[in-house]
């Protein structure tokens, strides 16, 4: 099993969600986050006050996937989240040792 974390543009979230649903991924955790990588923030001045946006708003998606689905999900996210501009985000993958469904204590991929 693999844990996938994707940081994407908020404006791409709906497209990513719909594309994932189309390939059968229903479950995910979504968090509103702020941060920056190579895309730096900017400053807006409104009525003499500076509003510096150095941490840009992003959406973080988290999901744990069975091994056979990982490549497909990554491809789908790449296609649906990409605009080609700096700030499109990143995908992180890491191995997961175990998953347990609390309700019935099922383990492994069955618990996903």
């Amino acid at each position, binding site marked *: 099993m693999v844990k996938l974390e994707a940081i994407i*543009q*908020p*404006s791409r*979230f*709906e497209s990513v969600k719909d594309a994932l649903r189309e390939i059968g991924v229903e479950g995910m955790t979504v968090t*509103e*986050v*702020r941060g920056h990588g190579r895309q730096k923030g*900017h400053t*807006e*001045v*409104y*009525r*003499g006050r500076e*509003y510096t*946006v150095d941490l*840009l*708003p992003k959406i973080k998606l988290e999901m744990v996937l069975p091994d056979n689905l990982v490549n497909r999900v990554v491809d789908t996210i790449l296609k649906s989240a990409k*605009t080609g501009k700096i*700030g499109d985000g990143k995908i992180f993958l890491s191995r997961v040792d175990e998953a347990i469904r609390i309700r019935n204590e099922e383990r492994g991929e069955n618990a996903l």
Partner: protein
Amino acid sequence: MSVLGPQAEAERQKIRQQFEAGTSARETLLALCDLADHHVRQIFDEVLRVQDREPEGLCLLALGGYGRRMLFPYSDLDILFLFGSERTEQEFRPLISEFSRTLWDLGFRVSSAGRTLEECKRIEEDNAEFHLALLDRRFLAGDSTLFEKLDEKVLPGSEKQARPFLLAQLHKLTRDRLTRYGNTIFHLEPNVKDSPGGMRDYQAIIWLRQLSEEKKGIRNITAAEEELCASAVDFLSATRCFLHYSNGRNDNTLTYELQEAAAARALGIGDGVARTAADWMRQYFRQARTLNRHLLRYLEQKAPVPLTLRQRLFSAARVSKYDAGDSKYFHIRDGLLEVTDLSALSDRTVTYSLFAEAAGTGTPLSREAERSIGYVLIHPELPPKNTEMCWEKLREILGSDYPGLALRPMQRLGLLTEILPEFGLIDSLVVRDFYHRYTVDEHTLRTIEHLQELADPPDERGAHFIQLWKTVDRRDLLILALLLHDVGKGMPVGNHVTGSLAALDSAAKRLRLSPEEKAEIRSLIEHHLEMSATVQRRDIFDPATVAGFAESVTNLERLQRLCLLTYADIHAVNPEALTPWKAEMLWQLFVATSNYFSRTLDRDRLHAHDEVSLLGRIKACAGDGASNEEIERFLDGFPRRYLAAHSPQEIAAHFSLYRKLSEEPVQTQVTPTQHGFALTLLTPDRPVLFATISGVLAGWGMNINKADAFANAAGIILDTFYFTDLHRTLELNPSEIARFRKCLEDVLNGKSALEPLLKGRVIRGRTPKVTVPTHINFDDSSSAHCTLLEIVTQDHPGLLYEMGSALARQGCNIEVALIDTEGHKAIDVFYLTAQGKKLTPQKQELLREVLQGTLG
């Protein structure tokens, strides 16, 4: 003992069947209580017998709902083991364990506590709930003399002593509970026990009565109100019984599924006629509202904390203030508006003034005042007068700082739907939705309350929007748009916005809104989801997104209203819907779009020939003799913002002045406004014009709050200055207005000089309390022909004259100006040219130095 289990279960089933066959909730609760009592006593006797003990020194008491004989099917049995002494407590401990275990085995959930008689004398400050539950004590079994001792000797004394503490705790616990549920009964899936209007409200009423030792309950309560309250308790009891039986546990959430089931069997109504879930929920909310209103009146009358001296002095001062005006009908007591002349309320003008007073001053109506209005509304011996609510009066309420303080009681009393019948379509309406927590009407009123909260926002989410709420123009239109924005949800239409717009059509006709007012509200309703959608689905840092959004919104004033509407609309979905993240995104989009508008003013100029409907409206207002060509010549080349800043009537008035320019080259008009005066001036362009006008205003002691300066294609300047008359010269001497205009015209025509006017006039006033640092910014990229100069600095009388003079001395021509103030802060944008071109970088630097030197 072994036979008791099946026996108890069979009896429980029998009670359930009887309830399902139509036995009332009241009888069901009593039957459940009797069943529990019977088994408690039987088991207690049996345990004593087995252990060969007499009950001397131990008795069992029922507490809380069980003590009151209102035991719901899966509720706990609250039992107190009362011991004569610590020694008896030790001796009986094994017996109690056995007793509790047996009850559990028979399917009774026991929630027990043990106290000695001595312990009951002491008030446990961290356990007020126990002492409150003890108010419902009832003897169950055991040593009855011990109970009598507690009931007649121990508790009366300690309860009397602890009454202020218990009353305060009960207030706190109740307020906390109500707050936890957002202080509203209108939840889509309410908890019939805990949420406002639920059974806990009833419990709190009972305890408040007991603690205040009032046999008759609330002051002035009528028998009819008592009866309504009793039937509300019956309805809610039936609902709670139904929920327990349906869920098979102590779960009191009235879910969508169970709403359907309750509606199908007309639960609590008794006529057996199946209803839709929405209709049945309206019944539910009606009953919950009765109970909750009853509780709130109690809480208000029995407030345990007296007002502070300051609050009392403040209230006293307010009373005398209103004695001079409309106060013969109402006054303020303990920070609440009270009615002093009940009979006057039959005149709706008086009633609406009371609401306007609440909305304007932020003083809520007392429950008693609300009740008085309610009484007059339904009693025919006081026939209503002046029932028609005109738009001017409604505007006063909607445009106030605290419109929610009027609209909330108006809705409760049915007056809101009398004025705005369209709102009735969403009365107590449950629309199933994953995100919304409240009924549609509740959501709507919350939007308005979230805006008025911006006077002092409770958390960081509102911080950015405070100034916007304070300074937004035509708040009344924003609030009316909010009242109508979801009304379509109560109509059989595919898209609720279509329904809401249809509702606006009828409301606008009835209230006689002007076409411009209606168009503004229409646009807000039409676009009420757009800003939220843009924030969530588009890249708000992309200039193309901002430009597209700005194009859709069309002008700055509308953007301000739409931003506040969106803030309030998201906030009122549920307490967590507006995250700080979303609030920040919304603000960023607002800032970017607002800057887009002020930086692109000269891009979008009017081509009057294409504006057929506008021409028609202006022609209609302008009257005889105006030709389309003449109007087109006047309008051609003005920035499109000119249309947003002025109504067709105002534009027609400007046009009339324009037509007189051939007779007199400077045309002026001075009109009173809500906060001062407005000066409109038309004249062919000339050097130093803006600075000269500002100088004359400063020379007369006027403080400019807002201004805009536009020029048409023919070089006719149209300046509007909004100013406050610091010395009340014009206000107290109307004849001075003509002298002021003559003075201005003479200075502009070169017939008299400006300098003598300014001589001796102390332009700088007192040292300001708040210091605003000067911020100067040049922007060459936003306009094709001009350099934008944005200045934010400390406001003071004469400031604009100082800036205008400095610009003129540097040879700068003001093409467009937007002047605004925000408290002590002046926020000005000038579109400048020098010799018809943008300012060179050197010129900009020089100007920066000059302005910095002038402004400090």
